[in-house]
């Protein structure tokens, strides 16, 4: 899921729409993010590739708006409301998610199981996940 410099990033994404909940004076989404280009990618427990500096979901408040919308822990956020999240600092990502004027955030998230599902649906007879072109005879 990390990027190869010079090549476009391809990923299977899921579109998730979260309605912000008004709590006292703030609008909360109900999850925590970690990662960013200014953070240390080696400490990320969710990424497959430890050089991936993307923004990941580290915690979901149970019953919160994100949980209701279907966000899972370990998801990598690719876009927020159209803005790219793969090359963002941690603080910029936070700001994009917590804009006071927006009530709804539309995220594009990716996770490993999505890619697996796509692979599986493409070719149901293959045994090896890594090589979808090999057909089990």
């Amino acid at each position: 899921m990390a990027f190869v410099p010079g090549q476009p990033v391809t990923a299977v994404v899921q579109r998730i729409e979260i309605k912000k909940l008004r709590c006292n004076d703030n609008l909360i989404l109900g999850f925590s993010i970690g990662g960013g280009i200014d953070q240390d990618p080696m400490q990320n427990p969710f990424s497959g590739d430890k050089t991936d500096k993307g923004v990941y979901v580290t915690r979901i408040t149970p019953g919160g708006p994100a949980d209701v919308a279907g966000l899972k822990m370990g998801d990598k956020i690719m876009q927020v409301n159209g803005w790219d999240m793969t090359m963002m600092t941690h603080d910029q990502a936070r700001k994009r998610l917590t804009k006071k004027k927006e009530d709804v955030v539309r995220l594009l998230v990716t996770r490993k199981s999505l890619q697996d599902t796509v692979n599986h649906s493409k070719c149901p007879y293959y045994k090896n996940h890594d090589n979808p072109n090999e057909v089990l005879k």
Partner: protein
Amino acid sequence: MDTESTYSGYSYYSGRSRGSHRHGERSRDRHKPRSKDSRSEKSVTINTPPAEPLLGDSAVRGEQIQDDNWGETTTAVTGTSEHSLSQEDIVRITKDLEDSVGLDCRRYFTLTLAVILGLLVFLTPLAFLVLPHLLWPEKLQSCGTACEGLFISVAFKLLILLLAVWALFFRPPRAGLPRIFVFRALLAVLVLLFVISYWLFYGVRILDSQDENYQGIVQYAVSLVDALLFIHYLAIVLLELRQLQPSFSLCVTRSTDGETRHYNLGQLSIQRAALAILEHYYCDFSVHNPALLSASKSRAAKHLAGLKVYNVDGEFPAAPAEGPGNNAAAGLAHSQSRAMIAAAARRRDSSHNELYYEEAEHDRRVRKRRARLVVAVEEAFTHIKRMQEEEQKKAPGDVMDPREAAQAIFPSMARALQKYLRTTKQQHCHSMESIQQHLAFCITNNMTPKAFLESYLTPGPTLQYSRDRWLARQWTLISEASVTSGLKDGTVFLLKCVDFSLVVTSKKIPYIQMSEEYIDPKSHKFVLRLQSETSV
């Protein structure tokens, strides 16, 4: 009413000798009850002028120059007449005489030896040059230009040698050490041997054979002077340079109150190290105040007084057969002391309580007196003002010089100062005369009250006080190793003075093994290790 009546043994008398001081104290103790009552009456002022310390002048002269409140305790007539010498004075006079005569003899002896050696050394080259002209002038070749050039060189080198020897050796001696200074003696012997060998050679090869080559003789004299300059260089290295680099750290502790300092010295003999330590002692250590030790002594006495050992049975403990009497007695004493120690350990002692409260009370009292003193001095200083030049011409009436000004404002602070000094047990260090002199000095130099008080609030180094507290002639060096041997790691020696001793231990500064590590300036690279998790 003052509560500090623990001891009133010392009072303010300027110039009173120590002998009659003690004498007076003894009789004053008899009169103590009376003096306590009369304290509130604020009676007699005692101002003896600064008499010579040798005569025990205990006259009661009531010169009322200052305020009545100055000498608060009454003096009783001590029983000695006006011009008596007490026993201690006589002993002290003879001791001083002995010391000075003994020391001077040795000093003069070494001085004469040194002067003789110096003259010998200085005149030898000149003798070498002059003797051929005197003894065989006809046979001598005339001196050419090169030879005369050598004369100038001899002259200047001799001048330099003279100045160098004067600078290095003829300085006023700082101290009298118990043993000879080994390096100097060795150097003197070396110079003597050197000069003698040159004379021998000269005598045999030149005088006997009456050599005509005068230039050779002049060159010989020049070589002697060169060699003497090199010996002087050796002397500088051995005497001055060798001990500059510190290689020992000495820990000096005063035995009475435990004040400790550390000094770094180079490679010195024990006696020279002791001298260096003593010079530092006079500059760094606070003055020795025996009055501060009386409290711990009384506590120690109380510890021992509580228990007594009675031998009820009269039986001796079982002792082995050899050495009948002594062994049994020693065994008995041993068991007695052990019993005392055990009983003392078991006893529920509340003396720590007393100590705590006593010290707290003392601190409080000192602080209170200090506050009163500071206020009194500040107020006293406001009464005088420095007069400018122009004003001096206008009003010549009431003008005072510093000494008179000091005497004018002194009475208003005298009582507070005296009480403070008595509470901190410093009153015997400062005589009234010295206080007034100090006050005049401070007034002359525009010092503030705080600056004036500084020398009374903290005990300063010994040099600050009067000469008779220095005891500079009464030091004894006590050492197990020979005092001319060098310092080693773990050397211990004692410097004993009359009341106390300084315990000195030395430790060698370790040999340091250093290795190097090269860091490329381009190798300093950093990454961020932040791991923040933000909830949105």
